[in-house]
């Protein structure tokens, strides 16, 4: 009898240790997911959280970001963006500008091997591809030390592709496919995350753009009130002189001609 009781006590103790280990593992998984921006606690999920569940990085300007959250685990600021410098699949050296420019950029981080990426490569080759927000679509793969340039070239067609492991590391890409939407005029990441299909990406990017997280005057440099007043004054003067937009006198064919007219 004593042996039986002792045996049961030992078994219960072992089971207790096992359960404690499982709980600890579960907590670590939850903590890791939380750091990636996924909150599984239904009591704390705001409507925005629910809508953006697959687009974990979508967030507004710095001021509206909840304190302590970060776009990705090792990128401390949404404005920490770098231009896409690397090589093309055919071996050209290339640098594509994403910050301090008039256009937005949607970077698709893809591999040549993953099954989900295949559907994106196919969608991107479509001549009727519509990128939400009017953004420029650029594919980024790892560098030639980790990807086959030939395989990428076959998948890419005429798509702009930058092969660079440095870009992947800078943007701290956790897995592929992964998407990062950058406001060119704002020089910051306004949305990022995962999606299973191009339709899903379009919807999520549209939400980010509609949230007003990119510069509203896309394609134009921000102008001061003084500059705007000066522009309006010049426009009035030209109109008073009978010169309307498109007037050939606004487009001299030589500097000499411009001087003669001036």
């Amino acid at each position, binding site marked *: 009898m004593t042996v039986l009781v002792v045996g049961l006590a030992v078994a219960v103790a072992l089971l207790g240790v096992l359960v404690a280990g499982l709980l600890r593992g579960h907590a670590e998984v939850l903590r890791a997911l939380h750091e990636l921006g996924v909150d599984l606690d239904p009591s704390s999920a705001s409507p925005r959280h629910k809508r953006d569940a697959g687009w974990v990085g979508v967030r507004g300007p710095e001021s509206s970001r909840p304190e302590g959250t970060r776009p990705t685990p090792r990128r401390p600021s949404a404005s920490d963006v*770098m*231009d896409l*410098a690397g*090589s*093309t699949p*055919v*071996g*050209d*050296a*290339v*640098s*594509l*500008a994403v*910050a*301090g*420019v*008039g*256009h937005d950029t949607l970077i698709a981080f893809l591999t040549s091997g993953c099954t989900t990426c295949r559907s994106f490569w196919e969608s991107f080759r479509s001549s009727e591809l519509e990128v939400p927000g009017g953004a*420029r679509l650029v594919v980024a793969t790892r560098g030639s030390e980790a990807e086959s340039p030939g395989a990428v070239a076959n998948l890419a067609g*005429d*798509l*702009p592709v930058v092969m660079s492991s440095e870009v992947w590391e800078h943007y701290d890409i956790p897995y592929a496919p992964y998407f990062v939407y950058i406001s060119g005029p704002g020089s910051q990441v306004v949305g990022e995350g995962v999606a299973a299909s191009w339709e899903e990406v379009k919807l999520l990017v549209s939400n980010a753009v509609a949230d007003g997280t990119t510069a509203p005057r896309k394609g134009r*440099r921000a102008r001061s009130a003084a500059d705007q007043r000066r522009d309006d004054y010049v426009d009035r003067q030209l109109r008073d002189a009978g010169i309307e937009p498109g007037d*050939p006198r*606004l*487009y*001299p*064919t*030589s*500097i000499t001609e*411009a001087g003669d007219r001036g």
Partner: protein
Amino acid sequence: MTASISGFGLHLSVPRGWEAVIYRRVPSAGETTHPVAQAATVPIPTQRGDYGGGIVETLGSNDVFVAFLEFGTQAAGSALFPSVTDVPALIPDSYRARQLQRTIPGQAGAQRFFSMAGRSFCLYSVIGSVAARFALCRQANELIGSLRVQAAP
């Protein structure tokens, strides 16, 4: 953050807001091709001409395009391609509408020929507005001055 790119013995430091590509077309049978470096303040498409066809059409009045087209080693040091130690800078009045490969209203182009490190080059630049040539020429020279050339192997 300024990016730098290197390829085919050419190196460019790319200022913020610019993008650039260094490439060499695959030669067809009996043809010889040479490296080309292009930079612009507008997106550079994958389909484009060496002199900026497909790019210059998109230039706004504040935009600049610059290309360095190599002509090989045989012409280096000739009368057309004088040897220099630094890439020749452009001046605002270098830009002329009739220097364009294809006339586009409002735009102006400039062209220079030179040799560096035993390699001959044509520098070709287009600005989106002749009226803004002073400011745009300054931008072009920032990019032009960043070119580094290695001797041909």
